[in-house]
């Protein structure tokens, strides 16, 4: 499978264009890093690829087909702040199952404790919550995962643990991974290929 962005363009209201004629291609099973300075539209790009926003110009294709408007989205996005990504009135177990039953192997890999499932989001730390967001995004129908500063707020040990398990799952299921980060060392460790934001934006 192949995720392709063709000639994407986006801007907020009448501000200057964040990017135009943006091309990106991501293969299944590939881990690609995207680095660039903040405030240039990396997160906006991630939202477009995952179907949260519609590009003003250009298209996003999955195997030559436009992205589905309804149903489970094959491109899933994990946000930087897990606190905003969970309903504070839902128990963790319910949040986790929203996209379908998660893989028990995945839960184990991510170091998710069964006892956490009964808790409320406010009772877990950001790092613990983020593991659930990752597990939720890695549903059985996910083909591509976009990690937008996914582990920025985690300590080094948790960061390593989360990435280790995500890479293992990606390998096992042949998922495509797009890692957006401003930490060059992390990107270099993880990715097969690194894209500089500047080199793509015209």
């Amino acid at each position, binding site marked *: 499978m192949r995720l392709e962005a063709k000639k994407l363009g986006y801007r907020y209201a009448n501000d200057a264009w964040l990017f135009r004629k943006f091309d990106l291609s991501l293969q299944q099973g590939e881990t690609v890093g995207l680095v660039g300075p903040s405030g240039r539209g990396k997160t906006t790009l991630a939202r477009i690829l*995952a*179907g*949260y926003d519609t590009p003003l110009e250009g298209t996003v294709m999955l195997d030559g087909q436009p992205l589905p408007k*309804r*149903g*489970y*989205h094959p491109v*899933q*996005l994990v*946000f930087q*702040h897990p606190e*905003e*990504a*969970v*309903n504070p*009135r839902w128990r963790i177990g319910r*949040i986790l199952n*929203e*996209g379908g039953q998660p893989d028990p192997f995945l839960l184990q890999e991510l170091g998710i404790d069964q006892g956490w499932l009964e808790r409320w989001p406010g009772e877990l730390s950001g790092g613990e919550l983020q593991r659930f967001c990752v597990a*939720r995004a890695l*549903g059985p129908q996910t083909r591509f995962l976009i990690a937008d500063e996914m582990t920025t707020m985690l300590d080094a040990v948790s960061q390593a643990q989360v990435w280790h398990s995500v890479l293992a799952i990606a390998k096992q299921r042949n998922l495509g991974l797009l890692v957006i980060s401003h930490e060059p060392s992390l990107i270099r460790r993880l990715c097969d290929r690194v894209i500089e934001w500047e080199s793509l934006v015209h």
Partner: protein
Amino acid sequence: MSAHQAGQWPSAAPRPQINRRRRTLTVIVCTAAFIIAAWLGGYLVNLEKLATNLQSRNHAPSLQYLFGTDWLGRDMFTRTVKGLGLSIQVGLLASVSSGVIAVMLGLLASMGKIADRIVSWLIDAFLSVPHLVSLILLAFVMGGGMKGVVIGIALTHWPSLARIIRAEVMQLKSAKYVQISRRMGRSSWWIATRHMVPHLLPQLFVGVLLMFPHAILHEAAISFIGLGLSPHQPAIGIILSESMRYLSMGMWWLAFFPGLCLLLVVRSFDVLGERLRGLVDPRRSRE
């Protein structure tokens, strides 16, 4: 701050907070108790006292007849309590139906742009007509009586609550976890019922409670002008309108006590709603 104050332990700051919270809770319990007593009183009163008793006509308030008796010898206290119970019952039915309409429309607004336009337009359209005018028309069309009044009030009082709920729904719609839910393949209806409704419940509860005073007053107003409840029912509006003829004869108690009680009940609902809103949503409580 003067020099000798600066060294003191700043004990004054946190205490008013605790006091205010306790006072809020006290007020809530007291008003709620009063309202429930008035409501249940409507069921518990001795119905025989509602009957006419020509032997004891036109008594001024006394220990035997707390609120006096009317020109047919009916005990005004019993009638008032019964009337308040009726008012609260009408208020309950009308406010709850209004709340249901408001939630339905608020959630409908979340389904899409066109749906939102329609809902906004409906809210504006209903808000642009004065309550009492549309209420009179609706009650008239429905043929008066309890049913007419309840339907009339329910159909006229939802817009302001619907507007609040819609705003809340719009805010929820942009919440990340709601957007994520959609990418997880969940339908608008699923999201509305599982993600949104639980968040709306506190707002809705307070909104419905604050609608009570309006509903009760409008019920009384429309009964007063004869388009509401039937004259056989001892509604406060009916009592007030009937007493008008006897006021000039000096029978002030006929209107005074029922009116005062209505005012008390309405004010209790208002205070209760405001206090609860302060607990549920401190940001809006000062508005």
